[in-house]
């Protein structure tokens, strides 16, 4: 898979998980919006991190979602880890 395709898959998965947690439609989530302003709590971030780790087989840092803060930046960081593998 190309890096771009991997990043697209990541974003689609992230949006789906976030939407389920917040209770909205994935297409309505702004990829540059602050996750906390979207209503993501620390427990949501922890569980989504675990789902990312399981789904993509890459080690996720516990602070990732809170350091990156937006869907696009999380996807950048995780796809960088994936391409380093």
């Amino acid at each position: 898979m190309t890096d771009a395709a991997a990043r697209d898959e990541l974003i689609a998965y992230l949006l789906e998980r976030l939407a389920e947690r917040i209770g909205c439609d994935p297409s309505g989530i702004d990829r540059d919006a602050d996750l906390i302003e979207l209503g993501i709590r620390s427990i949501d971030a922890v569980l989504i991190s675990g789902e990312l780790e399981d789904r993509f087989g890459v080690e996720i840092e516990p602070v990732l979602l809170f350091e990156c803060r937006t869907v696009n930046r999380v996807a950048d960081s995780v796809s960088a880890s994936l391409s380093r593998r």
Partner: protein
Amino acid sequence: MSTYYIGLAVTGHDPALAIVDAEGRLLFAEATERYLQDKRAWGAAPDHFDHLAGPLSRYCADATRFVVAASWARVKHWEQSPGEDGALSADIIDPVNAFWLREHQRRAFEHFGLNVPRIAPGVPVERRAYDHHLCHAAYAAASSPFEDAHCLIVDGEGEVGSVSLYAMQERRLARRWRSWGPGSLGYLYGFVTGRCGFDWRRGEEWKVMGLAAFGRPVPEAVDTLKRLVWIENGRPRTGDASSWQEAGAALAPWSRAPSDDVMAAADLAASGQAAHAALADEVVGAIACAPGDNLLLGGGCALNSSYNGTLRERYSLGAVHVPPAPADDGNAAGAALLAWQEDMGGAPLPHCPSPYLGSEPDPKALAGAVRHGGFAKVTETAGDTRAVAELLAGGAVIGVMRGRAEFGPRALGNRSIIADPRPAGMKDRLNREVKGREPYRPFAPIVAEAEADRWFEGAGPSPYMSFAHRWRPDKAGRVPAVVHADGTGRLQTVSGESNRWLCALLADFEQASGVPILLNTSLNVMGKPIVHTVEDALAILTTTGLDALLVDDVLIEKKAG
């Protein structure tokens, strides 16, 4: 020129230190609670100055470099959204306890290794930090005889969750998956401990496991607990703080206040143990073990010997191994071994089977006791076990403090109280006159590894007392003092390799009594850690119903006999 690896357990409770040399030998390991004589040593530094100074001068005299390794990769707490606590447990533990746990871990982590440069001036010190569950896994692996195994870590919480699964191949570990979030079998057991009127701060999960044999699981209570924590694909999950409050209310009919009679909590203890076993089965089930596979267990939940004892047969496993210190103290050894392995370019983990890794009795203190103690009888046994065996068969209760102390919570014959398991009244006598603890608490048997199968159903090697097994029905009646209320015993098996003196004592005791089994309990009194100094042991001899104390080969008796 030599590098030494100092592992430190930095959870904030159960601090411990371990030393590994450049060849990967585990030279020393001991919990800080022993040195301080403070149960679990909450808040004490694992590199406590005087506790560390002794072994450093003894084992590391030629050190030219120290690597100090911590048993956590980071502080638990991290900054998240405003007003939210980043610790996993913050959602399910009350704020006072959550803060208390978190700050103890933060303090221990931030200051780890502080005392090392002051103890060994001029020796360069490098600090490293390792993943908490990986430390558990490293000690489980290194203490095992296996080359390949599944390695399952289950505890209260690590950096991101409470369960990690590793694959060990040729004694190298690789993580397969880990759980994220606050769902935790360790916290669930702690919650049950509190509802039973016991205190997890004191590590009283033991009491729940022991009490469970006296009760019956209540289906409603088990269901309540299994709704509070559930397993998805091996990962524990839980609800929010309100679900824990609701569960507490639902369990009220079976709960016990600390001032109530202990037996009032027996059904809840049995329910907690049943829920734990059912949930743990779902975690183990997610590993997909093939028949004949080996399983390593680590983390605090691996102390659940009642559950551990059932695993090998039910899952058709080749063997199950639990290290002598599966809880957070053992992570000192794990961290030191990981630091060594990193410097060796990922070499296979060394073999470190011996639990006898701690301090030795001080001969000067022993000489002082012999000279000034005013004891009725002092005998130099020169390692001969016959006199001890005959005293035991005659009903004496004897404290044993020989050689190096065990690493981990179990006394395995070097810091033990031993007695004849045949008299039915021996259990009550020990609980009342020596240990000062509740009458229901069981005692464990020691048996030669080759004899274990004749006395127990389905018993394999259990060198660190990690597995409870059912006594064979025709045998239990011969050793009532070591048969628990549910017909099981948490056995220690010994072989010539692990402890020659104990093997000889068992053989001599069989000659004197007709049974090849001894009762073994830790050399301590209730609420205190296992003894550390000769003076600690003498205090038990002179203030309890202990009849004699063996310090190395010197037998000290209170009565001339």
